[in-house]
């Protein structure tokens, strides 16, 4: 799979000949220096973007052939995002932020509140559900973001530098949370440049200049693969 930006002579290759399979239940870290293309890869895995060349299959569906709306549904039902800068709606409460994916999934209000409250309790923010992001610490914000990412029971959790804006203690807590989630079956993909963070993952993929330099993952039979990039 390749990904280019721009056209003609200004064409820049962000990803070159990427070949990657992610199996359900894995916890993976994608590492690389900035500008190596790891964020682009994450965007493609997260169905925010499509590869220029090659095929990306998600749960057996060819993402290349999907239109914007189908991608939105896919993101809504199967993918949870956690970002470095949290990306919470600043004027909405923690609860409203967690409810957001459910609104677009068409879940009725009372059920939304119940599910969102449960998740906020799970990430340890029971007392903070009516607080706005500005009233929360960085670690708390990231936990709200994790709750939001999980609210639709996604197949995969994508975290782009989730600890980048956090102090060591909060970062460690978030990583503990990810490991707990992985232990109950959630597929986790971490994008990071911190070795410390990556060390939590069983499989580490290094990227440099848009290409995979190393991947310690164990290849499985194709039939068992659920996510694959060829």
């Amino acid at each position, binding site marked *: 799979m390749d990904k280019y930006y721009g056209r003609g002579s200004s064409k820049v290759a962000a990803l070159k000949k990427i070949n990657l399979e992610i199996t359900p239940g894995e916890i993976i870290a994608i590492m690389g220096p900035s500008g190596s293309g790891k964020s682009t890869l994450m*965007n493609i895995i997260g169905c925010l973007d499509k590869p220029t060349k090659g095929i990306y299959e998600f749960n057996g569906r060819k993402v290349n052939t999907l239109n914007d709306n189908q991608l*939105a*549904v896919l*993101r809504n039902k199967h993918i949870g995002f956690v970002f470095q800068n949290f990306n*919470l709606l600043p004027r909405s409460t923690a609860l409203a932020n967690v409810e957001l994916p459910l*609104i677009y999934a068409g879940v009725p209000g009372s059920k939304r509140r119940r599910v969102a409250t449960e998740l906020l309790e799970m990430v340890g923010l029971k007392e903070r559900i009516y607080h706005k992001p500005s009233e929360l610490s960085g670690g708390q914000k990231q936990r709200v973001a994790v709750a939001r990412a999980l609210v*639709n029971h996604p197949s995969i959790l994508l975290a782009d530098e989730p600890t980048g804006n956090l102090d060591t203690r909060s970062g460690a807590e978030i990583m503990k949370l990810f490991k707990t989630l992985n232990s109950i079956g959630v597929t986790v993909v971490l994008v990071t440049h911190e070795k410390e963070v990556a060390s939590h993952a069983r499989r580490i993929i290094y990227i440099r200049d848009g290409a995979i330099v190393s991947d310690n993952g164990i290849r499985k039979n194709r039939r068992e693969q659920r996510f694959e990039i060829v």
Partner: protein
Amino acid sequence: MKLFEALKIALHGLLSNKMRSLLTMLGVIIGVGSVITLISIGEGVKSSISSQIQGLGSNLILVTPGSGKAGVNVSTLGAVNRLTYDDALAVERNADSVKNVAPVIESSAYIQYKTGKTTLVSGTTESYAEVRNFSVKSGDFISRGDIRGYRPVAVIGDTVRQELFSGQNPLNKTLLINSKDYEIIGVMEKKGRTLTIDNDDRVFIPITAAESLFNTKQVSMMFIQSESPKAVSTAVDETKRIITDRHKKMDFAVSEQKDILNAFQGITGTLTQMLGGIAGVSLLVGGIGIMNIMLVTVTERTREIGIRKSVGAKRRDIMFQFLLESMFISAFGGLLGIGAGIGGTRMLKDIVPKLPTIISPWSIGVAFLFALLVGLFFGIYPARKAARLSPIEALRYE
């Protein structure tokens, strides 16, 4: 996504920037308010003119010399087209559907008691008062005897009384009209204005006296009253037939009150449309204000759009959210604008009491609907822009 959720999100967006929303709304409020106010002026003028024309007298038919159109007063000086007192008598005698005929020889003249002034002198018959709905306050109106006897008598209007006889009783005094003596036998009740004409600034004399005073047989116009409202068209036909028989040609014009009314309603209708159109432009400007602010809002909230898209908002969800915001501005602004329009009209009445105004329900409906359309139209572009943002670029936006 359900409509209710979308509404909640849109409202949340608006409330998060109250001042800006309010100022944008102000454009719509002023637009809708001025549409309603200006149309109320147009409608007020229209109805006031209609009632004034209806106040000319009921079942009224107007005959004028020449082949002029309805309501147009052709010069009395031309000797070619003669419409005379005898024509009036013939119509009165021979037309069954005609109740009264009031021919008028009208010209301005210089009148004098102690002070003098130029006014309109109308030579007419005893029928005039009834046909035109005029009544005498004191004394008598011109009688058939005055006409037959060519008596130099005069009945004065209220304006003339005030200007020449303030504080005095004018009855039996002698009034000079173009230097000839006339005895005042009556004073008219105040009648007010028809359009711009002061119905009280005039002097009535017997038609026969006017013939010699102005040295003409030609009547300026003839007011004919039919027996009943239903008989108007029959009376028009009979009048045409009788006078044509006498003249051997159709050298006069007959118009009904309805024709005059229609002519003026055409004019005032145009006036209303014009005023509404001018105000509509301000509403349009308000719409541009909405678009402007929505574009700023979309840019400001690029990251929010990215977040929403990343958690599964479809294009149409985003489109709907921003479109609803602009619709909200225009709808709410429209509602407040209705209040502003009604308030503005009341205020106008206080400032210019003479200006007739009527708030018609249709103008409220039209203004509100137009505001909604403006909100929709000017909201589409910003909403589309928001909906089409790429989620990655939107998330990266600082």
